[in-house]
């Protein structure tokens, strides 16, 4: 089986950290998903929110500072009194709790960020609009997940270390991952069946998270794939597990980002 991206599967979880005495910051549901994706290694080899060199390298070269390919910045934006060296507890409404050790605080140019990632500065683009609403400073540093948040569809949620063991148990070596924010259509079916002619199995990853208006509902995507796997594909060669992240709508950069995940 191929090595994890960057050569190391990150796992930054410690349920025994005592959170008393640390300042707390409430984070959005989107950011909580980023925190959990970092902690569980979905974003390997990232171990935290990006510091300046990684952020700028990703914008300019689509690589981390250490030359590993990476196309979408994973950043923590804030306004307020944070300073380098601080340790804070991040909390979300759904119950995610993490420790964030701030290594670097830096400013950024929102228009340049949008232009590099989305090739436009037009605020009608959902990704650009999100950047324009971000707070003015970024903080980089490692995170450690203390408690996972409550989310829907947890029976479809496998973490990277679990999927690697699943593939090993199934005897899969070559696996094709198919990530989607849509219900399957004939084009998808054709691609998936073609993949099954040369791979040992197909790993279907519906994206569960914030999407733009008009996209399919998560429940509908899951039910449709459930039916496809149950009644159409050979069950031993198709597996579905959700990917909890928001869509960025960043075209080719996002396509590579999905490959990395």
């Amino acid at each position, binding site marked *: 089986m191929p*090595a*994890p991206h*960057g*050569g*190391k*599967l990150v796992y930054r979880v410690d349920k025994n950290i005592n959170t008393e005495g640390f300042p707390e910051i409430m984070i959005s549901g989107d950011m909580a998903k980023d925190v959990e994706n970092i902690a569980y290694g979905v974003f390997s080899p990232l171990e935290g929110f990006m510091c300046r060199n990684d952020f*700028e390298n990703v*914008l*300019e070269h689509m690589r981390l500072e250490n*030359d590993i390919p990476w196309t979408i910045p994973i950043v923590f934006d804030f306004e307020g009194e944070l300073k380098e060296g601080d340790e804070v507890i991040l909390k979300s409404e759904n119950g995610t709790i993490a420790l964030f050790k701030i290594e670097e605080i830096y400013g950024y*140019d929102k228009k*340049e960020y949008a232009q590099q990632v989305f090739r436009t500065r037009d605020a009608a683009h959902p990704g650009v609009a999100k950047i324009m609403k971000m707070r003015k400073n970024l903080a980089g540093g490692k995170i450690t997940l203390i408690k996972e948040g409550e989310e829907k569809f947890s*029976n479809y949620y*496998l973490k990277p*270390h*679990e999927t690697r*063991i*699943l593939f090993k*148990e*199934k005897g899969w070596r070559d696996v094709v991952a198919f990530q989607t924010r849509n219900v399957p259509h004939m084009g998808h079916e054709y691609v998936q069946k073609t993949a099954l002619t040369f791979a040992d199995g197909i790993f279907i990853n519906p994206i569960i998270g914030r999407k733009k208006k008009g996209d399919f509902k998560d429940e509908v995507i899951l039910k449709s794939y459930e039916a496809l796997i149950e009644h159409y594909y050979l069950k031993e060669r198709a*597996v579905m597990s959700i990917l909890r992240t928001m869509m960025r709508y960043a075209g080719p950069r996002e396509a590579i980002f999905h490959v990395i995940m």
Partner: protein
Amino acid sequence: MPTEKEEKGKYTTVSIPTPLAEKIKKRIEGTGFNSISSYVTYVLRELMANTEEEEVFSKEDEEKIKERLRALGYLD
């Protein structure tokens, strides 16, 4: 954004034998590689990516994960 000076600091020079450079020059004709440097960088990145090692899980961790996979119906 980085200045031009900072940008230059992200690259370094490596010497390779001239005959090899000539071979590479011929090989990249008509390809998407626009310089010997970009081709050599590509080849070296491929080579480095294949030598990095994966961490392994303990037997105990692996058993716990298999139990969860069975409970969710992913494994028989």
